[in-house]
């Protein structure tokens, strides 16, 4: 036990890698009959929303800015990826690069405009942007297929190997682990420290020589790029997208992911994505009487957001604190007894 703890403490990456390995065992578990086929789809959903969540966490958790355009940028990324791979027949990796960098460029322009003004304007400005993007998705039907939607395939690597669902799932787990390690690195470095200072007090940050606009823009750019990447993963796993799916409600759900999972925690978005997108599908629908209620998932998420903000600002994981306290007390008592016995 001590030995295992040592491995995780000396190298924090091992924690993420271990999690990734555990996650990529899920398709095998399905083949062995331990998991349902639909469970795999739900877990895949959790993975790509985790990626989006990690990005938004950088913006909301570490820099204290709210964006409501997440779903719009995610949609932009996914439509780009679908168009580039299906209609233009571009190689998979090239399409990923293009469909992340175009939303990123759009996001940076919007950030440049709205970040010059007070913080709470960003939420409203991005809300307007997501409306514009929704209109674009409906009207530009050569790119997006309009109301009827757009379909895509599982990723085809190097033009030869077309993955099936199991391998796409494993690929997504690898992407999630890479994203977590990358984010862990820059959050625990100069950039992350600048974000935290900025969140604490903008004036203090300015006085320390932190360029506010630059770091705000960096945070917004990271959030946008991760959202687009999440969209790319979405379209190659679910293989279908339609305009009304990228609504403000989705942006709110992604925001809920971070709030519920715990802001300023690397694993927060993963926990949050499982609670917001996994629990209603996997658990709430199995409970007999309440499963028939319409809008149950929304009520569950809404109540959790409010409760977490009011009582557990560090995320839903704190709900387990009483249990943790109990275990620690139990251990202490045991140690005391032991020492008493030893003394005698």
């Amino acid at each position: 036990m001590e030995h295992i703890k040592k491995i995780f403490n000396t190298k924090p990456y091992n924690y993420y890698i271990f999690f990734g390995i555990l996650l990529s065992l899920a398709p095998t578990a399905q083949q062995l009959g331990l998991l349902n086929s639909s469970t795999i789809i739900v877990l895949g959903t959790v993975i790509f929303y985790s990626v989006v969540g990690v990005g938004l966490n950088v913006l909301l958790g570490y820099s204290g800015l709210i964006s409501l355009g997440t779903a719009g940028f995610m949609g932009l990324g996914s439509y780009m990826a679908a168009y580039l791979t299906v209609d233009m027949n571009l190689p998979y990796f090239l399409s990923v690069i293009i469909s992340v960098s175009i939303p990123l460029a759009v996001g940076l322009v919007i950030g440049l405009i709205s970040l010059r003004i007070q913080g709470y304007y960003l939420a409203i400005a991005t809300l307007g942007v997501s409306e514009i993007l929704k209109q674009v998705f409906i009207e530009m039907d050569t790119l997006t297929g309009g109301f009827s939607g757009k379909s895509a395939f599982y990723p085809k690597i190097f033009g030869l190997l077309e993955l099936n669902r199991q391998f796409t799932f494993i690929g997504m787990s690898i992407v999630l682990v890479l994203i977590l390690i990358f984010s862990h690195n820059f959050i625990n470095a100069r950039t992350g420290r600048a974000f935290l200072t900025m969140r604490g007090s903008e004036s203090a940050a300015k006085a320390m020589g932190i360029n506010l606009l630059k770091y705000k823009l960096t945070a917004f750019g990271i959030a946008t790029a991760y959202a687009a990447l999440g969209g790319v993963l979405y379209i190659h796993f679910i293989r279908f997208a339609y305009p009304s799916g990228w609504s403000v409600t989705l942006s709110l759900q992604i925001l809920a992911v971070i709030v519920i999972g715990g802001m300023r925690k690397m694993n927060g978005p993963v926990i949050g994505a499982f609670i917001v997108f996994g629990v209603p599908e996997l658990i709430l629908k199995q409970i007999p009487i309440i499963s028939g209620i319409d809008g149950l998932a929304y009520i569950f998420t809404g109540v959790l957001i409010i409760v977490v903000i009011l009582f557990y600002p560090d995320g839903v994981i704190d709900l387990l604190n009483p249990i943790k306290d109990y275990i620690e007390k139990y251990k202490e008592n045991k140690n005391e007894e032991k020492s008493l016995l030893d003394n005698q």
Partner: protein
Amino acid sequence: MSIFLQLLFSSLETGSVYALATLGIIIIFRTSRMTNFAQGSLGMMNAFVATFALINLNVNVFVAAFIGMISAFITGVVVDLVIMRHAKRVSPVSKQIITFGLIMLFLGIAPMLFGTSPLSFPRFISEGSISISGASVTYNGIFNISVGLFIMIALFVFLKKTKWGLAVRVTASNEETAQLMGVPTKLVTMGAWAVAAALGTLAALMLAPAITVNVSMMDNVQINALIACVLGGFQTFYGPVLGAYIIGLSKNLLIYYVSSTWGNALLYILILVFIVFRPNGLIGKNYIKKV
């Protein structure tokens, strides 16, 4: 000319809807320093209550609207008592997030109580129209415009001339000083939530005949109301209301004269650009933040 007049009247009607929602948002912003994103959802849920009363209790349209507004008033009080009062110490960003939580909550509760199918709510005045130099305006349209204007004027008189209006303005300017001066700020904040919810419901009911009562009926109004606040500036009560009417008008003009598909998008872009040049809005005052 008659086309322009026609556009003007329809803009005044949509402007009234936006202005009512905007007024709710700005009252809450001024008294409790939070941008209320749940204004539309509050209105949506209580519009369902009004429609439910109309269908099941067989009452007059006006009585149904009144029931809806009373239930909105109570919802506002409950939201303040149960949630907002305990959120005094959380940061402004977290307060915003609480209103996002409220949106999700109402999105879930409305279909749970009233079903998922859209309901229809009739006009206040069912038929009849007059023609003003070539432009035809329904009686209902005139009714909506005048109710909107009447409520605006009544509220501004209330804010400027009465003792309670003074209490609201004092709370808006500095809550702690207001408390020291013996202003019951808790009651003021609660009243703000209640009135805002009732205004949102009225806006929803004015809109309802055109688009039916459904879960997403107020999404568009919510966005336009928030943008009206940005356009008018958050520092005054009347700025955002003015912004709401401007948005109503310029939206219709852009949609009619420029492009029917991209008019909306163009308006948002224009306002974004406008904000770059006047960050505090049309009537915003630039006040210096102390550290």
